[in-house]
């Protein structure tokens, strides 16, 4: 399935209360590496979205959440299981490298 957008308003519902693991892509329009991994995350979501839900959080629009989770570098990918961050990936990586980092969840 395709990735979806998450906001401050539905972060609790969509991410923290999810019964399956959720990957949040912290990104922004002006961040080149973020745009570079966009299609890769889309691919991964299409292939593995049933097991690992992938959502995108725009740090420009939703800076409160970004600050709360201590984001200082984007792209930053956080995996949440039962409301806790269990994995953080920082920086753009090729698809095989991302899949390897995410293998516990897919």
């Amino acid at each position, binding site marked *: 399935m395709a990735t979806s957008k998450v906001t401050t308003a539905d972060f609790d519902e969509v991410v923290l209360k999810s019964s399956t693991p959720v990957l949040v892509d912290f990104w*922004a329009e002006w961040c080149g*590496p973020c745009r*570079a991994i966009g299609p890769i995350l889309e691919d991964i979501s299409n292939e593995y979205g049933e097991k690992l839900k992938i959502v995108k959080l725009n*740090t420009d629009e939703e800076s409160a959440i970004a600050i709360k989770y201590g*984001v*200082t*570098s984007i*792209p930053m990918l956080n995996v949440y299981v039962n409301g806790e961050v269990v994995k953080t990936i*920082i920086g753009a*990586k090729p698809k095989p490298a991302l899949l390897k980092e995410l293998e516990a969840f897919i």
Partner: protein
Amino acid sequence: MIRDLVIVGSGPAGYTAAIYASRAQLTPVQYEGSVTAGGALMTTTEVENFPGFVDGVMGPVLMEDMRKQAARFGTELITDDVVEMDLKGDIKTVKDGSGNVVQARAVILAMGSAYKKIGLANEDRLSGRGVSWCATCDGFFFRDQTIAVVGGGDSAVEEATFLTKFATKVVLIHRRDSLRASKIMAARALNHPKIEMLWNTEVVDILGAEKVSGLALKNTLTGELSERDFTGLFVAIGHIPRSELIIGQIDLDNEGYVKVEARSTRTNLPGVFACGDLVDHTYRQAITAAGSGCQAALDAEKFLSH
């Protein structure tokens, strides 16, 4: 099917090579890189010195336009990474991250360079926790904070100047007593009210448990050690050539740059040409990279016609 030409890498060198090679009807395949497509200019802001752009041009826009120009003449662009190359012999083999193999009679190498790390143990640990290599990506998160930039060249000065948009104060730390950056950019930094210069200073450690809280510094003249509080560190101390895939197959210099025969892009392997930051530790400009990309395509064209 054996192709004429494969171009490995994008950026001004790779795209210019592709424009020339596709206009010469070599129908090149170009591996742009899955996350590195467009190269170093993708994380810069305004490029003021690329001729023809009177009012400057944004780095990513320039790359997007070069890419379109390459596509226009029939370059087959592949947004994937090359993971293996066999460059010896008459037919060169290139394997990509999806397992596809492309064979060609000539290869142009344009993999560019990657950020150099300071080499401190805490640098990786605090990466994304206040240590960054990309001011345009991460500057936003340092609003109203005091941050450090280490380096003395164009990229350090550009990052420092860019970061003043967000930070209260930017301290530019350089181990010498003058900047290597071009004069116009250096003057901009030196005269900027938010930028403080810390000359003759080396970063010897990055402090902080969960995130960056400060730096341990050493005066390179007196050896005196000190600590200073910062919430962020941007590293801009230069680049290393991305030649890791071809070590052992092709002649490299001591620093890992591909060696080319002077006034050409010919490497020691027949049919293999190299251009851009992968060969250049002197000029390293968008325009020189583009120029060498053009040379590589012409060299390849000549090689293929014999």
